[in-house]
């Protein structure tokens, strides 16, 4: 069985928000649209976004890490948001594990959003239905797009390629290998939701300097000594031996 998902590499995410607006841009005019904006030019503008990038600070100066943290629906393997839906509008696809909302069935009761611990569902206050990340189902299977572009909009956009997309059930897939090898982890594992999206932690490259690396035979300073010393006037063995 396939489970499509995103892997988000916090090690390279610079918090640029490209994934945020490219998601909105793709989806508002797509099958999951529209994505409305309220007070777009007024006080407290607010709108529907399927993906947000947040910022956290870890530790104390000067040992501070700034962590940029993108989050969209994690397409949980045990999605608590699905069984609670009274209408069946929320469902998880057998075929690829994508959790979707059928806008035609949704009654806008918001119950599923209560049942998601991650805060990634967005009620559309104008269309009155629940919306969320679709993993760009309307891109990833669209055969009219070139193969390389059959990926979520956010993945294509991400300048640092901090977002990987693939089947986490296929142990050979790039995403599975990455999760395995780079320490991929799930958010709030305590609820047994088994998020399919995984995050990769920060990794550090360090350099170790050995004492001897500072004193080397080819040290260029050695070339700066003047080799031609002037002859000296004082007595030397040259003057006093008779061999």
């Amino acid at each position, binding site marked *: 069985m396939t489970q499509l998902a995103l892997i988000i590499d916090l090690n390279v995410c610079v918090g640029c*928000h490209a994934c*945020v607006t490219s998601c909105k841009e793709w989806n508002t005019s797509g099958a999951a649209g529209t994505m409305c904006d309220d*007070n777009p030019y007024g*006080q*407290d503008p*607010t*709108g*529907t*976004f399927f993906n*947000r*990038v*947040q*910022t*956290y*600070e*870890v*530790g*104390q100066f000067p040992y501070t*890490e*700034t*962590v940029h*943290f993108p*989050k969209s629906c994690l397409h949980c393997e045990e999605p*608590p948001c*699905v*069984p*609670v*839906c*009274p*209408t*069946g*509008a929320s469902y998880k696809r057998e075929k690829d594990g994508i959790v979707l909302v059928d806008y035609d*069935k*949704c*009654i*806008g*009761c*918001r*119950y599923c*959003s*209560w049942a*998601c*611990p*991650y*805060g990634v*569902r*967005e*009620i559309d206050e104008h*269309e*009155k*239905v629940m919306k969320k990340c679709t993993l760009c189902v309307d891109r990833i299977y669209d055969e009219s797009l070139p193969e390389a572009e059959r990926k979520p909009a956010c993945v294509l956009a991400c300048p640092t390629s901090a977002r990987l997309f693939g089947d986490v059930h296929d142990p050979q897939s790039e995403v599975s290998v990455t999760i395995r090898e780079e320490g991929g*982890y*799930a*958010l*709030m*594992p*305590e*609820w047994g939701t088994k998020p399919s999206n995984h*995050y990769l*932690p920060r990794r550090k490259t360090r350099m170790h300097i050995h004492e001897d690396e500072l004193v080397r035979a080819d040290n260029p300073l050695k070339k700066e000594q003047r080799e031609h010393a002037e002859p000296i006037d004082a007595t030397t063995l040259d003057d006093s031996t008779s061999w």
Partner: protein
Amino acid sequence: MHPAFSVIFLTTLIGVGQGLFLAIFTGQSYSAVELLPTEDSVQFYATGSMLALVFLFAGLIASLFHLGHPERAWRAATKWRTSWLSREVIALPVLMFLIFVYSLMHYFEWDTMLFTSKTGARLQLTLVIGMLGVIATFALFLCTGMIYAAIKFLQEWASPLTVINYLLLGTASGFILATAFSSYTAPGLVKFYGVWATIITLSALITRSAALIRNARIKHKSSIQTAIGVRHNQIQQKSMGFMGGSVNTRDFFHHKTRLFMKSIKWIFILLTFFLPLLFLWFGIEQANSNTLIMAFIIQYLGLIAERWFFFAQANHPQNIYYQTI
């Protein structure tokens, strides 16, 4: 959570309806085993259960305000296998239907006697319908409670106490209303209902307090560490990615001060438990229907506050992600 008034009204109103129906039916069952006199079918049972129905109906209407697409509300009945909400959506009309039938039968006094025991206990058709209604009532309480109790990461809610409180608080309000109602329609039952109302209210006080104590002690399983998967004891959000608010900041948090929360807590304890009992017994002693009505109204207001607090107190783990603009 952000308390939604549609849901507050839904749960409190149907609670009253359910409780009142239980009270009416209790009255009838007592009289069936001759512990109480039989009351006038139309004036008491039919009207009383009709009144319960009105509350249920009002609750139903309130619930529609919660829906984005009320015209599709029927769809909500389809997922009863997994969804407590769906089950509630089924249980409520079933109960309403049963109460309606129960009320209608009393009204037209179509009450076939099914069985009479030697001791004089009678089994009428209305009793059977009523019994079904009781089952539906309990089912509805269970569904309503479970809607909340089933969300395991809403730890304040995820407890049997949630169901028990829904049951007891709804029943208490129904019995107080029944007390008031009987003062007009069946004065002989006032004390009977008063005693039960008191017992149930006091039980609710105990279980609701238990829930408060439990919630005050809850250790939340989710933390900012598990939320973002970084292990460090000092992590602070600096930006949540937007500044003008979102569903996440509107739907999941009450945006009220601690003081406000605390006040609401004491207000609801006072209004739901102590004041109504005071009015109740004052009203019974004085045989003053108005005072009894007051007792109900006060408790109902208390329940609104209680329900508000119930929502507000629930700490949704998603809030961990939405702390700082």
